[in-house]
């Protein structure tokens, strides 16, 4: 039986008695490209931290690849690119190769060393995200868009089945944002990696994603991009907690 990659049932989570997530129920089927949209403070990052096991829900159950999260051990199946990827220590003198290698640390395990096979895998992954020419450059010397690709390579190098990205395009210029979505599209279609992306770019989600979840402490919307596009201004205002008017712009 093909389990959903992630399933959440009746999740409740509060920070010091302030509910951040209430009765959240949703699933990410294998192969999906799921976008989570919603206002700031709506619990999107908390939701991801719960999936990654960094926080424990006050109530409800999370399953990863069919297993209860408490019993889940194979974390190399999940790649993660955090918001902090934009604010990392740019003075850290690590090459692109070294940064991407870090994605293999946990998979290789304690008391084991990096081998020539690992090196080959790292170089292949750097090529996969189009950064082959920069493998031995210091990451601090690259542009924001290039750095973002390096962090995706770090998440991909352990061959994850699920890639989670938390607002990855913050600080990336428009041209590189477009290239970035093309890369995600390729990872999803060609390499069959399930994607979960937190973003404010709802227009891009309606083009690239296979499913969209609208979250503002509770799930206000769950459906396809077409169904999201069909939402009325009233429904969107309910999701965002303030009046919203849709303005379309030209993603291709």
């Amino acid at each position, binding site marked *: 039986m093909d389990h959903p990659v992630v399933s959440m049932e009746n999740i409740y989570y509060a920070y010091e008695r302030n509910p951040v997530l209430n009765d959240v129920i949703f699933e990410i089927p294998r192969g999906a490209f799921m976008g989570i949209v919603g206002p700031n403070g709506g619990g999107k990052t908390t939701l991801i931290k719960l999936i990654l096991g960094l926080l424990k829900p006050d109530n409800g159950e999370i399953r990863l690849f069919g297993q209860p999260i408490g019993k889940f051990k194979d974390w190399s199946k999940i790649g993660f690119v955090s918001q902090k990827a934009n604010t990392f220590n740019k003075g850290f*003198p690590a090459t692109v190769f070294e940064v991407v290698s870090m994605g293999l*640390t946990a998979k290789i395990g304690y008391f084991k060393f990096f081998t020539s096979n690992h090196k080959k895998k790292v170089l292949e992954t750097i090529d996969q995200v189009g950064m082959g020419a920069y493998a031995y450059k210091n990451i601090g010397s690259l542009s924001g868009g290039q750095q973002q690709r390096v962090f995706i390579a770090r998440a991909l190098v352990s061959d994850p089945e699920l890639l989670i990205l938390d607002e990855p395009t913050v600080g990336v210029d428009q041209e590189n944002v477009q290239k970035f979505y093309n890369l995600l599209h390729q990872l999803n279609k060609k390499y069959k990696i399930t994607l979960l992306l937190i973003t404010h770019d709802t227009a891009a989600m309606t083009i690239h994603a296979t499913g969209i979840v609208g979250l503002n402490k509770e799930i206000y919307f769950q459906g396809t991009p077409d169904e999201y596009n069909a939402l009325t201004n009233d429904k969107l205002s309910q999701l965002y907690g303030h009046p919203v008017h849709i303005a379309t712009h030209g993603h291709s």
Partner: protein
Amino acid sequence: MLADFLEYNFLRHTFLTGILIGVIAPLLGTFIVVRRLSLIADALSHVTLAGIAFGLFMDKKLALGIAPLYSGMGFSVLGSIFIEKLRGVYKAYQEIAIPIILSGGVGLSVIFIALADGFNTELFNYLFGSVSAVSQTDFYSILGISIVIILVIRLFYKELVTLSFDEEHAVVSGIHAKRIHLLFIVLTALVIAASIRVVGVLLVSALMTLPVAASMRIARGFKQMILFSIVFGEVAVIIGLISGYYFSIPPGGTIVVVSIAILLVTLGMERFSFRRKVHGTD
């Protein structure tokens, strides 16, 4: 100029110990600097001083014969564990652990020194280092510590680098951050205790940070930064020890001055290469 260091046993032990700490201090220092923990070395060196003062006090008053190297090491390791605990308690103000431990170390040192009615030149040697203070036993102890430190760093290198670069990613990927932190800080404590005989309490943190500050300006990649740091550390220790001996100056001072000179040279080189690029003469 090296002849005396090779001829006399006490100088040879100091010289060989210097070579060892020229490797281990910048090696650990590289991780300390990139994790923005440079002041931890200062805090631990002051706790080590308290341990040394305790050892000297026990020896002077009670004739217990505790080697100051070991009592210093014991205090340093306990101090390092306490720092980690405090950093866990004050999660939003982790740097507060440093002044707490530093002042605690100085306070205890003053108490032990006063109780022992002072230690005269012996304590001065511990503060600023000495070219003649390393005994054969000290040398073998420091050799053992150095081997352990290098092996442990080799064994946990990938975890330490991953954690130093991005702790959140390391935790998400399943690395036991707390255990690795503790291991790292205990190693730092051992390096400091081992280095104090040669460099001195007040200057040991300089040997852990100055070579790294110089190398990070010119290194391409983390491994290269470690390599350059060790080379700079060795140059500073060798020149510092020899010049300290010939000018009768505590080696801590000369080692630090040489380290600063290396730093200035690397900054000058960087500026020179930048100007060449700007003017297109490269």
